[in-house]
């Protein structure tokens, strides 16, 4: 714990702390309070918010349908996180251990997708995956497949879209974590006759844990609330929690219920984060 009021701390750090707190209060907690307030209000006749207090919106969450939707979103988000970690780790290791010149190039390549709008990149997958798209043309040309595969508007396409979209969020924290591991530790492992596998298992992977945790959160949370990907690549077939929240706000004009759903989503994410931070940091975190 930082001793904020001790005199040993430089003044600038205190200013930074209060600055950050003010920022959080203004741009995070106050809007959150508004959402909380709306979630306890009622829907107006034509949409909009009537300030009549009710717990009705939270009662509607008890619907088994909501359970199915939350569960499905959790499965997709977990899958995306695990696959991103599996793909992301070798990539991050390569970037972190590259020579400075190569590193800049590789990092830039990881970042380039961010320069294009997420929506545009998701549309590009539609062109790739559809019946007369590139992937099917490729499969048929090589004789792997005689009929076009049904790729677009499937669960596969949704998972692919999520993994593609959030992979950089896993890779970047992992690069930072791996860079911090001294190469001498790896050399020491080899000197002690560790195989490559054993070295990774006992040295690099455990020390990369902060990167996995940070990357995991950065992939998991947005995947859990994703709505563009399930809509565009899933063909609007399967309702996910993000799609449902978007529907409540923009279709049914039921802001109070949408707010309650948002709160439930945030609660789920917080509980999971709490569990993960418990198991991964042990007692070192509050």
């Amino acid at each position, binding site marked *: 714990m930082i001793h904020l009021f001790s005199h040993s701390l430089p003044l600038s750090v205190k200013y930074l702390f209060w600055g950050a707190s003010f920022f959080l209060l203004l741009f995070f907690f106050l809007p959150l309070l508004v959402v909380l307030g709306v979630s306890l209000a009622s829907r107006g006749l034509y949409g909009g918010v009537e300030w009549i207090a009710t717990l009705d919106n939270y009662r509607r969450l008890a619907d088994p349908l909501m359970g199915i939707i939350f569960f499905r979103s959790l499965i997709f988000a977990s899958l995306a996180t695990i696959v991103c970690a599996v793909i992301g780790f070798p990539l991050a290791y390569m970037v972190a251990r590259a020579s400075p010149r190569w590193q800049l190039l590789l990092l830039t390549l990881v970042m380039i997708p961010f320069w294009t709008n997420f929506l545009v990149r998701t549309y590009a997958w539609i062109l790739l995956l559809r*019946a007369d798209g590139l992937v099917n043309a490729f499969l048929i040309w090589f004789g792997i497949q005689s009929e076009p595969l049904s790729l677009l508007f499937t669960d596969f396409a949704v998972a692919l879209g999520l993994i593609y979209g959030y992979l950089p969020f896993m890779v970047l924290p992992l690069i930072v974590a791996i860079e911090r591991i001294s190469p001498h530790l790896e050399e020491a492992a080899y000197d002690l006759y560790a195989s490559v596998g054993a070295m990774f298992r006992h040295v690099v992977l455990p020390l990369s844990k902060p990167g996995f945790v940070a990357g995991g959160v950065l992939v998991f949370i947005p995947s859990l609330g994703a709505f563009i990907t399930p809509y565009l690549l899933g063909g*609007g077939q399967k309702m996910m929690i993000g799609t449902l929240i978007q529907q409540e706000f923009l279709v049914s004009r039921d802001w109070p219920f949408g707010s309650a759903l948002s709160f439930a989503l945030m609660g789920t994410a917080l509980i999971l984060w709490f569990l993960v931070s418990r198991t991964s940091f042990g007692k070192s975190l509050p």
Partner: protein
Amino acid sequence: MTHLHNPRIKVFFFLLWCVFGSLLGSCSNSSSPSESEEAVPPTLYYYTWSDYVDSEIMAAFEASYGVRVVVDTFSSNEELLAKVQTGMTGYDVAVPSDFMAGIMGRLGLLAELDLSRIPHSQDLEPHLTHLPFDPTQKFAIPYLWGTVGIGYNAEIVTEVPTSWDVLWDPQYSGRISMLNDQREVFGLALRALGHSLNSRDPRIIQEAKKRLIQQKPLVKAYTSELYDHLLLSGDVVLAHGWGGPVARAMQEDSSIRYAIPQEGGTIWTDCLAVLASSQNKTLAMEFINYLLSDQVALQTSTRLLFASANRHVRHQLPAKIRDNIAVYPPDEVLSRMEWMEDVHEAIRDYDRAWTELKVH
């Protein structure tokens, strides 16, 4: 502060800057019209559907009226309502669809129109006057209109679809797309079952839901944006959709057709309306009149392949467009069509049923 000179840290900050730069970049396109203004020429703020924007027409209006037009776009009626409800948006003219014009009118968000300033409001198609959502024609003037029907590929669907039931035909399994719009999808099922598409009786909504759940295994996608592309690419052969995009797909592929089933369906119109908060109502009404004038309306309908509310346009359009039922439904069809209305509290039943459909 020496660590700031570490090249790796520099790289990190550079990348951070790239990420945030791109995030900010993607947000800035929805700039609000209330931003700084030099206000030398009067400025009109027009809030419309993204595909309705025609820079040529805007430039012509700017030139002949000596004003500046700032266009901003929305992609759903609900988005329009949400934005306008926040209060001072600065927009002057907006384009709500029929039922939304009714809601906005009742909520006091629309200004009363001075029809003497909009002489072209006298040129409306006869069936577009005194509509249920604005019977006294006080708040909104129809602009473009059309129907919801079935776009199909005549090479594969060889019989002209006469009933919505074709969308339940297992022969076309996996080659059907439906609009991703709960009211339109339920409306279709309700009409197929012989009910009004504005039914509010929960039992009837449940009945429609059961039919739609039966249909779901046959449906390739629920999409309101992609069905014309899916028809063209061959991913689907039957698409529940608006006439305009189907008509545009027809221009690219002659095997694509449009049908309006016997049971009838939705007729819609997007209306021009002046917002109550507009600072420039006179100019707004002149703008509406301009958009409805024969030449401008003709140009709009030719490009979008949506029928114009101005009745003179029909006769000036090439026969190919005029006789296309995806653009101009035949008169005998009109009596079978129904306007979509706000269903008040029943929206919750629709919402629950739609969610259930999407969970199956």
